[in-house]
């Protein structure tokens, strides 16, 4: 399978950083996921072959990290933290609100493919709890009203 030039140059660069090939697996998986949207069977086979690993080994690593997925996700992946600090400041309310507005559950994806939702553990933003991560962007001090605006914004962006 073919990846973008950017992926290839990052991959080549990564290889030079480690003494063994298999060490580049985790960053490479992340790059591939960013590019393809998820880690398809095709991606797994390709990376296993490039890094002299079995497909099983690649799957083992993917399954360990919750940030990696083998199933397609929405364009915007909402990761709502419900760990202790966020929970104390109303995170569960935020999460429930998301479920209702998007009509999906934990790990679900909306029919239009725009959003998926995940309930996650601490994302290191406790000082500004409750917090949520959308792809690589953080949103903090969340309230239900704030969520409305954020989701509208993403929706508009996604429809363009």
């Amino acid at each position, binding site marked *: 399978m073919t990846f973008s030039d950017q992926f290839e140059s990052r991959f080549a660069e990564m290889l030079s950083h480690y003494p063994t090939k298999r060490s580049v697996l985790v960053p490479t998986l992340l790059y591939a996921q960013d590019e393809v949207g998820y880690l398809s069977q095709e991606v797994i086979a390709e990376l296993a072959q490039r890094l002299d690993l079995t497909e*099983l080994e690649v799957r*083992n690593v993917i*399954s360990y990290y919750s940030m990696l997925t083998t199933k397609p996700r929405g364009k915007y992946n909402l990761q709502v933290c419900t760990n202790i600090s966020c929970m104390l400041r109303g995170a569960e309310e935020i999460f429930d609100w998301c479920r209702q507005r998007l009509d999906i559950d934990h790990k679900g994806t909306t029919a239009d493919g725009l959003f998926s939702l995940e309930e996650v553990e601490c994302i290191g933003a406790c000082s500004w709890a409750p917090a949520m991560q959308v792809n690589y962007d953080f949103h903090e001090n969340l309230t239900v009203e704030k969520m409305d605006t954020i989701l509208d914004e993403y929706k508009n962006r996604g429809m363009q």
Partner: protein
Amino acid sequence: MADVNITVDGKKVTAPAGTLLIEACKSVGIEVPSFCYYPGLSLQGACRMCLVKIEKIPKLQTACTTVISEGMTVTTTSDEVRQARKSMVELLLGNHPLDCPVCDAGGECELQDMTFAYGAAESKYMEAKNHKDEQQWSPVVYFDRPRCILCYRCVRVCGEGMDVWALGVQNRGVVSIIAPNKEDHLECEECGMCIDICPVGALTSGAYRYKTRPWEMKHVGTICTHCGDGCKTTLGVRRSDTGMEIVRGDNRDKSGINGDFLCIKGRYAFDFADSAERLNQPLIRKEGRLTPSTWEEAFELVGKHFAEIRDKEGGQAIGVIGSNRTTNEENYLLSKFARVVLKTNNLDHHRTADFPAFVAALTGKLDITASMRDVFNAPAILLIGNNPTDQHPLLGWQIRNNVRLHRARLYVINTLPIKLRRQAANFTQIPAGTEGKVAAFLAGQDSVAEALASESTSRENWIALRDKLRGEQNLIIIFGSEIRGNDIEVLVKFGSAIPGAKFVCLGDYANSRGAADMGLYPDLLPGYHRVADNGKFHREWGGIPTTPGLNLPQMVDAAKAGKLQALYVVGSNPIGRFGIDPFAFSKSFVVVQDMFLTETALMADVVLPAANAYEKSGTFTNTCDDLQLIKKAGEVTDTKTDFEMIVRIADAMGFDVRKLVHFGGGGTRADMGQSRGAQSGEADQHGVWLEAHGLEPKMSPFDPMAILDEIQRLVPGYDVSRMNLLAGNDQHTNLAGSGPSTLHNPELIVPANDGLFSSGTLGRYSRTLNSVIENRHREPAETEVAAD
């Protein structure tokens, strides 16, 4: 290595530097409980069951990953340690279903044992247990996820031990799970190592699951009937409608040359024994059809015909084909029966290796063959030809794990990129059929270097390889049937110049080596003595024919020409294996002893239902010359051992069987209990005593031990310790010093070419092997038709 002194529970312990604490404790009889630790596999430190207190270290430490150091003071019995163990068991039981009453492992489960020894009666956990249904991963392997305690033994043995890497760990924390390589199923060598190494009942086998309880079986240690490696296997048997049924095979007690290793055949392919197609009645051809008969009728008929033909036409009108899967005693007896009773040297078997040439090349050299154990310990190994992973799984295991655990240097020369190249320090691929040239080059014939040189291996590479090999010490040279005839002598010449070098010649079936050693040849007697030489066998056996007889193809020709009037086939299927015209023997009186109606049996005039090696006693010699005892485990009523049938036929021919089998000699004719039936307690005690002292009573002409006596007396190299043999230990025979034999028709050698999932006739009737083959949607391999 220097010794290190430590103190454990007040006991002084001394062990070599580098020893793990858990092993040091074990050496003085202190048990530290463990789950994930398994000798010979990499350290995991996953289960925390082995926590002990080491003085000056604040937290408890895992004994399985701690290397001892001088002055270490360890406590394994304090309240703190006990409490830690208790908590570990409690955590493990948090998700473990308590289905011991139906679990295969119940009664043999390490978790059960540990809970009994260290666990708590109640649990603080209120949470519901995680449950998942049992999954079938392959015809052989089933996985019951909730029972898994995540010790990772299965993952490691499959990867490190088998070099298959078919199992992995997915997810993390409480939802971690063992996963097969093809997402929802396994594609692997189906060896079952993972199943037997599992401390609990999480991995179970299609062959045994939910069949019986461990304590309801009788366990008999015997030898695998399949390939030539001679793995010890412990068969679990129980009563069935037709005798004794084998329900399980394993080697969990790690006895024998194979430790805990068995391939799929040794572990699961005993099921040919209770195949529905098993013969259990003698058959006689009447009006063209094979018709059931009584044993008496069958033996009388065979005896009458054999005697008549011998008396009228002479012994040369009778041919005999022996087996690679009968015992040494049966092979010896057949060899003797052919010569002494039938008066013929027309005797052959399916040859899979050139043992006569090998023995000839070794003449006069002592201690020159390697045992299966040596292969695990040698510092260097050269492997030419063969593919042990498929054809000699135990040998493959020994080589692989020698490289992994002892860093042996492995040199592989093969026409194919066989799997063992992954362990090789040097792998050289050669064109098909050039193995002989390799031998010549190694022995110093530089002129062939050009012919061997290729793009990947230049002439210089070859020379460098040879120099390396010459620089080795105690090298083991292993070669397949590709090297035969003169090439063996050449290779031995090369090896003999290397200090301490030893050899292994690979033959394919469970007792191929024994068939050769016991003289199933038209020109060789037991111990490779030539029939023409007037030696000890002529003295011992009396007047035997001295002109070499016909080999197998010659017998076929003679039969076609109407000169071979009778053919006696014991445990062999030449028509199926060699593609012989089924009508070649239509003019001959053909008698076949077999378990199944093979292509050969179908053509016979009399078919006698035979017991297989799991149903009899005797000895086998593996391809490394290791002699081992086989013990009767299973039983199918109305079959007889080949041994008994040979004796009965001799008797029916009017021959005095005392001259064939020297039983009851020396006046030991006491009543051993036969006449007293169930009240034979006293006599039984006597029998037990005799057996314990290696003095079997040998009261009957069907006692193979009487022939073993003769073998040990007359076949060079077989005079090993009877005591050790009876105790179940392998005994290396040393045939060097046997009579010289001649260049020996290397063209008659046909390798079995069995793969991991085939095993000649036995494989054809094994449900397990067939289900694996079908499961892969592969056409049954051609090799399924085999001679034995």
